């Protein structure tokens, strides 16, 4: 920890600065030390809560779902229940991730405030962009880890049963961590890419307005998705059987497919979904990085114009 207290290079110091303030966006009027902790805890416990609540549910049918299915030797029922639970969990991870990324919307790219506050210091604008990007990556990685710890440890026990093709606990834990982690990366970088595209495409004077509409629409989508995830776990085998008809283009189904494939499922539909999950994650990360690197260079004049409400973040005038 002593090393951390010392002064290091410009890039390190900028990352330290942005990482410490990543949730202090324009939507916040005062420094909020509680926010990172609150969101971190929320992210940590919510997906796990899905499982824990069900296990401790007052409804006996719910609490002993797998036990009943196992006693009835209903192998197809157990498989369907496990897929539904996994899809519900991934949907919740995707929605929570999306909401976190939207909360960070203002912090994803440097703003005119950053440029002006650092203007007299020996810092280049590309260093500010890079530091913002690195801090965002570190922050997202921390959240991926936080969100996945409990689900990865609990899900294999939760979904465990005689139906498993491979009953290795660690294989299931790894599959859970990987599929949730990639789902997180997919959503987070899709939002980064979306904001980057808006910054590059939307006229500067319209950026703030368009950005608010996009944020609002996405927040609604993620909130509805989050609520809907609670009913996914009730899907019956006949709905699971119809997944190829209605779920092939739903991102949570891709990552559920990845989880199933990693745990030994040989179903062709899930194999295709797993491939789709990998390709989508790759595209999202590539686009996110590309739009960040390809963004117009922030200039002093642009930063001044932004603060006076004449343009969007980072736009030269």
């Amino acid at each position, binding site marked *: 920890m002593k090393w951390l*207290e*010392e*002064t*290091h*290079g*410009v890039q390190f*110091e*900028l990352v*330290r*600065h942005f990482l410490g*303030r990543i949730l*202090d966006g324009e939507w*916040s009027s*005062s*420094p909020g030390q509680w926010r990172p902790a609150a969101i971190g805890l929320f992210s940590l416990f919510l997906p796990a809560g899905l499982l824990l609540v069900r296990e401790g549910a007052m409804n006996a049918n719910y609490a002993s779902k797998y036990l009943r299915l196992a006693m009835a030797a209903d192998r197809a029922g157990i498989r369907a229940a496990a897929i539904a639970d996994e899809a519900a969990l991934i949907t919740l991870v995707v929605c929570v991730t999306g909401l976190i990324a939207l909360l960070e919307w203002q912090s994803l790219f440097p703003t005119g*405030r950053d440029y*002006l*506050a*650092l*203007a*007299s*210091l*020996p*810092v*280049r604008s590309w260093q500010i962009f890079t530091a913002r990007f690195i801090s965002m990556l570190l922050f997202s990685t921390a959240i991926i880890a936080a969100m996945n710890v409990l689900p990865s440890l609990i899900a294999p026990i939760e979904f465990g049963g005689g139906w498993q093709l491979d009953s290795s606990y660690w294989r299931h834990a790894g599959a859970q961590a990987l599929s949730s982690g990639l789902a997180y990366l997919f959503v987070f970088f899709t939002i980064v890419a979306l904001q980057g595209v808006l910054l590059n495409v939307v006229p500067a004077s319209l950026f703030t307005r368009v950005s608010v509409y996009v944020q609002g629409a996405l927040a609604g989508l993620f909130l509805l998705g989050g609520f809907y995830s609670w009913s996914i776990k009730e899907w019956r085998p006949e709905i699971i059987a119809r997944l190829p008809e209605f779920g092939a283009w739903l991102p949570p189904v891709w990552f559920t497919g990845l989880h199933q494939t990693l745990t030994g499922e040989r179903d062709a539909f899930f194999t295709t979904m797993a491939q789709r999950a990998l390709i989508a994650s790759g595209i999202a990360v590539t686009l996110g990085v590309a739009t960040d690197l390809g963004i117009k260079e922030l200039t*002093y*004049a642009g930063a001044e114009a932004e*603060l006076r409400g004449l343009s969007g973040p980072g736009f030269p005038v």
Partner: protein
Amino acid sequence: MLEVCSLTKRFNGIPVVEDVSFTLKPGEILGYVGPNGAGKTTTVKMIIGLLEPSEGQVRFQGRSVIEDLPSFQARVGYVPEEPQLYPHLSGREYLQLAGRLRGLPRTILESKIDELLRLFSLWEDRHCPVSAYSKGMRQKILLSAALLHNPDLLILDEPLSGLDVTTALVLRELLEGLAARGRMILYSSHVLDVLEKVCSRVVILSKGRVVAHDSIAHLRETMHESSLEGIFGQLTREQNHRAVAADILEVMQT
């Protein structure tokens, strides 16, 4: 030495600063004077590298500053006209950020920050967010940030803005002390009486052009004026202030 060579800035083709040239030698305090909108701040921003000149260049110790802007900025202390600080940072946190970005080792930085906060009477408010500071307190933070790394060149753009009388007197003494230690100081302002007391030479700007560049003593002698205010009035052909005040009074009373 700082050399400003034929600096010109146009916005949408309209010249704001035209063909401005001057030099600043070690141990010198150069006043940069002009009425509102004369182009003082634009010149300062071009010198510091915040705005790209349309023409001309700035040289520091014989090298164009554009060649290695961060190295130049590392040797410059700059107090901008408008304080742009992170509102959520405390004064102490902003100074820590500035010092770290200038590469100052932690132990040296911490002691310097504590001393400067005490000397500028900000100690009690060191943990308050900058958004709660008065304009003068923000100005003190900017001054502290500009002095932290013991710069070779100090560029001050209206540094007295919001400062109380005591701090303004401290700053005046400080500038003279820095000049005596061989530092270069560019002092841009329209507060003529302070400039007259601290500056050895002045550059007077009017409508983006240099209309005088000389020592104050020599300007007084050649223009037969006893004060910088009189010289300034002659050179910039500003309105007759007495007549304007009388006109305003008349408008108020009608």
